[in-house]
């Protein structure tokens, strides 16, 4: 009996004061999805290529979000349940749809949710959660207690440095009038496929679903339970305008950071590949290393392309 009590006491002493594993990650995220509100969100990311930031007006209702830049831009985005519509001056300028019937969440999220105390955020009572990968904190969420809305998300690199902050700078639990938006009638929904050459695992990320279209484009969606990215493999070159050259292990990639997101593209022997996602920079090299490496077409082919396209 004494030995059992000693074990329990030792166990309690090992748990840091005020810290306990709390809600499951999927429960926390699900609660956030069902909330309704409008808010101004500041996105600011310290990337290896410099700071990338944006200020947007964000509205969420019944799992759908609508947002637009806080400027004179007339561009608006609607997204939710597999749909994505970008509208400018009342006209749809971009849209895509994914059939969600075959889509499954990650079975074993990499992260544990740790309750990290109470907070007062924008004058509202909130709770703080930390997503941990073992000892490593990867994200801190501040969740509005009354509505379950994630008011602030801060993600970290593997040295504890802040990568991205997505924080509300104003919050209103009411959603203004929401205009009806029709997606592009010619846009067909992508349906998950069962066949693809894309890897099922990439540096701790699991391929959740994959899409193959008639144009020779494979698209795999990977997640570790919180961060996610897409890998595209095409039989034609993938063009990234405005990217910088990133070299690693002798390979040369085009890379672009935008607020909250990174894009890589690179040529392969029979086409091109791209990676788009929100994973922190310290994870990039490990993922890229497990994908086909950049192909060097040689001096004369590069010269020809530079002259004639």
């Amino acid at each position, binding site marked *: 009996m004494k030995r059992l009590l000693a074990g329990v006491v030792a166990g309690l002493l090992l748990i840091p004061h005020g810290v306990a594993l709390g809600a499951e990650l999927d429960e926390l995220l699900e609660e956030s999805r069902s909330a309704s509100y409008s*808010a101004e969100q500041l996105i600011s990311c310290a990337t290896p290529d410099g700071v990338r930031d944006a200020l947007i007006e964000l509205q969420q209702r019944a799992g759908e979000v609508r947002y637009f830049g806080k400027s004179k831009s007339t561009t608006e985005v609607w*997204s939710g*349940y597999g749909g*994505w519509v970008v509208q400018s001056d009342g006209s749809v300028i971009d849209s895509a749809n994914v059939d969600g019937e075959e889509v499954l969440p990650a079975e074993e999220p990499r992260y544990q949710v740790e309750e990290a105390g109470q907070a007062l955020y924008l004058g509202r009572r909130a709770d703080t959660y930390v997503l941990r990968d073992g000892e490593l904190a990867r994200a801190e969420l501040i969740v509005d207690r009354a509505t379950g809305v994630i008011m602030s998300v801060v993600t970290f690199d593997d040295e504890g440095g802040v990568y991205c902050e997505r924080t509300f700078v104003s919050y209103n639990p009411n959603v203004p009038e929401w205009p009806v938006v029709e997606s592009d009638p010619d846009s067909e929904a992508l349906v998950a496929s069962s066949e693809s050459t894309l890897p099922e695992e990439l540096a701790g990320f699991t391929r959740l679903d994959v*899409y193959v279209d008639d144009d020779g484009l494979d698209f795999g969606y990977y997640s570790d339970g919180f961060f996610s990215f897409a890998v595209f493999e095409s039989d034609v070159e*993938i063009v990234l305008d405005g990217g910088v050259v990133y070299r690693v292990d002798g390979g040369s990639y085009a890379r672009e950071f*935008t*607020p909250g997101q990174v894009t890589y593209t690179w040529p392969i022997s029979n086409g091109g590949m791209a990676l788009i996602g929100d994973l922190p920079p310290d994870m990039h090299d490990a993922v890229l290393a497990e994908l086909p490496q950049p192909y060097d077409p040689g001096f004369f082919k590069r010269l020809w392309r530079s002259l004639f396209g």
Partner: protein
Amino acid sequence: MRHSGSQISAYLDGELTGPELADFLHHLGECGQCSDELLETQEVRAAVRSLPVIEVPAGLMPATEAEVLPLHRNRGFWVSTAAAVVILIIAIAALVTPAPATISVDELNSRFAARVSLDPAFGPAKVIIPEVTEVAE
């Protein structure tokens, strides 16, 4: 005096005079090798001279001149022509070579954004900023 094949040729051509001729003849009297070489050279010359003379066909020379002389005299013209031909070949090759098919990242980003909206973490933590949305300064 050293052995000199060139002096033998000069002697036979009558180009040696004065002290040079005297030295050569003196050396020739003492050097069997040069005497033999002089005899051989004289025999070869005699044999060549004994060959029959062949008349060049009447139209050959004018035709050759007509083709060779302009090439020599108008080198700039031919270099320019060759360069123009090369450029023309490259231009035609560039025109007939189809531009490589490409796909824009924007198209891929739309698909990614649509798929993200099915992610459990979709919402404030995952909104995708499209290229066309202006960002804050």
